[in-house]
């Protein structure tokens, strides 16, 4: 199999413009003849659905939630980057491009990242026009702030609810198209399979979560916008229904899965407190703009934080990284917290936490200003911990948050399966091995509003697609096959709850394939996951029937897929014997414990091909070349 990224030629600044000109266009009157299936209604899916419908295509849109507005993009807090340079502080498309390639530790495709930076400004224009209430200054102009890993203020925000406001903007555009009839919405529907006809993606198999009905849907192209797989760790900041099922089902049908080991562990989350916790809560890293991270200098110092004098505190990020200080990128901040806690200097009951202190900012700017910026985050923290962060420092610890890995796509955002497009967090994306703060919202909306609508048109205009019906083979056969899988799941009459099995796998991955990884631990995990998978199929409790709303059956299918996918994640982490971004291999570090890349051997995208459950996957490599941002050891000192 050859992996062609289809990156167009020419100077990087002109690639996208030239390429858009070269793409074939679908005649306006012909667009209504095409159906497009989109799965997922987060920022990427909702924006793509609205835009394609505006252009005249017929969209069939599926989501597992009861409403498209509930997709997990809603929970993103901090902001969205755009190279507008409104604050006149030296930002440019080139700088956003440079920061993103460097922040991703030189494991992203340059041409894609440049395009992302290019369209970033238009996203803000579009969102403002939709009525997104971004923060503003007294002038009436838009406000900006700096955000983890950037030295310019390029982040637009709506209090601590930027994801919510951007998603509701996309959702409103989407619902307008539902009103026109151009989008047909299927809420509470889960994609179970991808339908290929002669090797081309032509449809999906879904389950109506209310009635249990399994149906096939066909179209000219299929777009997956189904998010990331952080929930494989069980405890993560992701919503509890986030899953890998749609992507994994497509992978099983031949779509390559790229860089699954690139997972982002977010540095500022509320620490784990008990054994029955169902999820972790993120505290936006915008807090690092005004909060100072510290731990006591002496291990085992159990005094309350306010009683520890200034000279006995270690502001370790400011000490280790004087130029970036508390704003170092996420992977660096997370690893530093882990190292400090592993050295016995963590705080709180478990010792797995560091302080994030606002005392100095409150003294400098006043409590009113701090509440205006972070009020909802302070309240959320207090609800969960019963502590007021304006009085005592927050306690934070890293938690799984975002996954840079995903289905492999080319410059068109199309997978190696013709007709299968993957957008947003679900693709292996533009973030390389580490995503910078406020870049996820940018990428999701760039894909949906400004990139996919062009490239999918080019695909449809240049493909001849024979008519396919839901009753035709092989589509019809897939309905039966998926129905049998559910029967098999329901026939397991075991003794362990799904939650219990999921937790065990999550903890295993967190310990062996989390913030820090080594060959021995990964080898142990690789051996343990198939055992757990076997136990699942023999000993899980899957209650109820497949004829109505059954949350346990839904969960069982997702856990089953995580148990297959987990093995691939570990395999990729084991094979990539270098450190880069969020993937830290202990065997590959600099003398001062920073991630050390191995460009000679690993400057490539690792795209894996499925060969069967429990069978070794086949690795395909897409070499990465850097013409504009020369790979160097990342330094934030």
């Amino acid at each position, binding site marked *: 199999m050859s992996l062609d990224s289809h990156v167009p030629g020419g100077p990087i600044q002109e690639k996208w413009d030239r390429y858009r000109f070269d793409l074939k266009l679908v005649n306006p009157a012909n667009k209504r003849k095409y159906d497009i299936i989109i799965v997922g209604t987060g920022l990427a899916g909702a924006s793509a659905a609205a835009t394609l419908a505006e252009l005249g295509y017929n969209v069939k849109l599926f989501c597992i939630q009861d*409403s498209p507005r509930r997709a997990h993009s809603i929970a993103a807090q901090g902001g969205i980057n755009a190279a*507008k340079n409104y604050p006149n502080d030296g930002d440019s498309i080139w700088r956003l491009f440079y920061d993103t390639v460097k922040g991703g530790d030189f494991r992203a495709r340059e041409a894609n990242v440049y395009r992302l930076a290019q369209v970033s400004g238009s996203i803000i224009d579009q969102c403002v026009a939709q009525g997104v209430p971004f923060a503003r200054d007294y002038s009436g102009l838009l406000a900006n702030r700096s955000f983890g890993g950037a030295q310019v203020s390029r982040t637009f925000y709506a209090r601590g609810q930027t994801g919510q406001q951007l998603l509701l903007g996309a959702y409103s555009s989407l619902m307008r198209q539902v009103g026109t009839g151009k989008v047909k919405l299927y809420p509470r529907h889960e994609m179970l399979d991808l339908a290929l006809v002669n090797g081309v993606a032509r449809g999906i198999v879904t389950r109506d979560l209310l009635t249990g009905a399994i149906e096939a849907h066909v179209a000219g192209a299929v777009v997956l916008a189904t998010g990331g797989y952080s929930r494989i760790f069980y405890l993560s900041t992701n919503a509890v229904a986030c899953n890998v099922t749609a992507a994994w089902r497509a992978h099983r049908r031949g779509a390559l899965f790229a860089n699954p080991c690139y997972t982002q562990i977010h540095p500022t989350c509320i620490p784990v407190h008990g054994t029955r916790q169902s*999820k972790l809560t993120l505290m936006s890293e915008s807090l690092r703009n005004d909060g100072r991270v510290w731990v006591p200098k002496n291990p085992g110092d159990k005094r309350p934080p306010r009683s520890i004098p200034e000279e006995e505190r270690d502001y370790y990020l400011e000490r280790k990284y004087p130029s970036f200080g508390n704003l170092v990128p996420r992977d660096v901040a997370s690893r530093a917290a882990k190292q400090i806690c592993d050295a016995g200097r963590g705080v709180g009951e478990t010792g797995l936490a560091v302080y994030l202190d606002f005392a100095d900012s409150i003294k400098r700017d006043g409590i009113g200003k701090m509440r205006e910026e972070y009020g909802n985050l302070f309240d959320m923290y207090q609800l969960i911990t019963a502590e007021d962060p304006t009085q005592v420092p927050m306690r934070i610890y890293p938690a799984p948050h975002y996954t840079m890995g995903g289905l492999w796509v080319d410059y068109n955002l199309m997978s190696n399966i013709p007709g299968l497009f993957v957008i947003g967090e679900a693709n292996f994306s533009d973030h390389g091995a580490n995503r910078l703060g406020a870049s996820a919202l940018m990428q999701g909306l760039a894909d949906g509003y400004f990139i996919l609508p062009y490239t999918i048109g080019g695909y449809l205009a240049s493909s001849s697609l024979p008519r396919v019906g839901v009753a035709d083979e092989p589509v019809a056969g897939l309905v039966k096959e998926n129905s049998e899988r559910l029967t098999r799941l329901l026939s397991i009459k075991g003794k362990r709850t799904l939650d219990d099995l999921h937790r065990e796998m999550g903890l295993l991955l967190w310990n062996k394939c989390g913030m820090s990884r080594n060959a021995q631990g990964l080898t142990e995990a690789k051996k343990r996951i198939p055992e757990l998978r076997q136990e699942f199929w023999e000993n899980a409790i899957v209650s109820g029937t497949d004829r109505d709303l059954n949350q346990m059956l839904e969960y069982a299918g997702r856990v089953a897929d995580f148990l297959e996918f987990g093995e691939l994640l570990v395999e990729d982490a084991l094979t990539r014997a270098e450190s880069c971004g969020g993937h830290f291999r202990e065997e590959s570090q600099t003398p001062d414990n920073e991630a050390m890349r191995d460009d000679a051997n690993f400057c490539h995208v690792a795209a894996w091909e499925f060969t069967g459950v429990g069978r070794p996957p086949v690795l395909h490599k897409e070499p990465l070349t850097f013409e504009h941002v020369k790979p160097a050891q990342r330094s934030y000192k």
Partner: protein
Amino acid sequence: MSRRSMNLTLRVWRQKGPKVRGAFVSYQAKDISPDQSFLEMLDTVNQDLLLKGEEPIHFDNDCREGICGACSMVINGQAHGPLKGTTTCQLHMRHFNDGDTVVIEPWRAKAFPVVKDLIVDRQSLDRIITSGGFVSVDVGGAPDANAVLVPKEDAEEAMDAAACIGCGACAASCKNASAMLFVSAKVSQLALLPQGHPERQRRVTEMIQVMQDAGFGNCTNESECEAACPKSISVSHIARMNREFLLSTLTRRR
């Protein structure tokens, strides 16, 4: 933080499907930590039920951080429970006492039919947005984001309204099952921003029409909605919507 665990008695609404009669069923929630969230307490009860071979309690939930609007239950007669400005998922068990009896029901409103146990159908809210809760701007035609100035105060007030998570607690807590707070939050947000002005008259009339058609009641100024709203959205937005509606009725060009 207290570490004392507690035992509670739950009386939970169980209903197998939309057309089946429901009833309250009692369960014991044992050894609950005060640091567990209300939903994590239900998770614990469900684990016990599964191990006993019984059907777990079904309830909508997703983000578990108070922003997706999925969780929706009436706890001891109050939508989202006793704590002000909080969704069920962010309500922690430290607000309950050992030995308490807790009654848990689904949203009760004609426009929110029960689907199963504590899960209701809230598509009526989506239909209201479909009727006008948007600015009709296609991708590609937007002017530069800073081309139109918006006074900071207006942007802030629009954001107060836009914080609505679409959970439906307003309607569930209203004796008339009115969704006026939900509708007014969107009407108000877009009326406050210049981008929403061209369509403001059409928007408010269409959205109110669809709200009424969906079976939601009218507002009689009890302010229960504001008290129950997990985002503490003010009833002043209802006042603004009424003004918009009146103005639209008097002056709308048809």
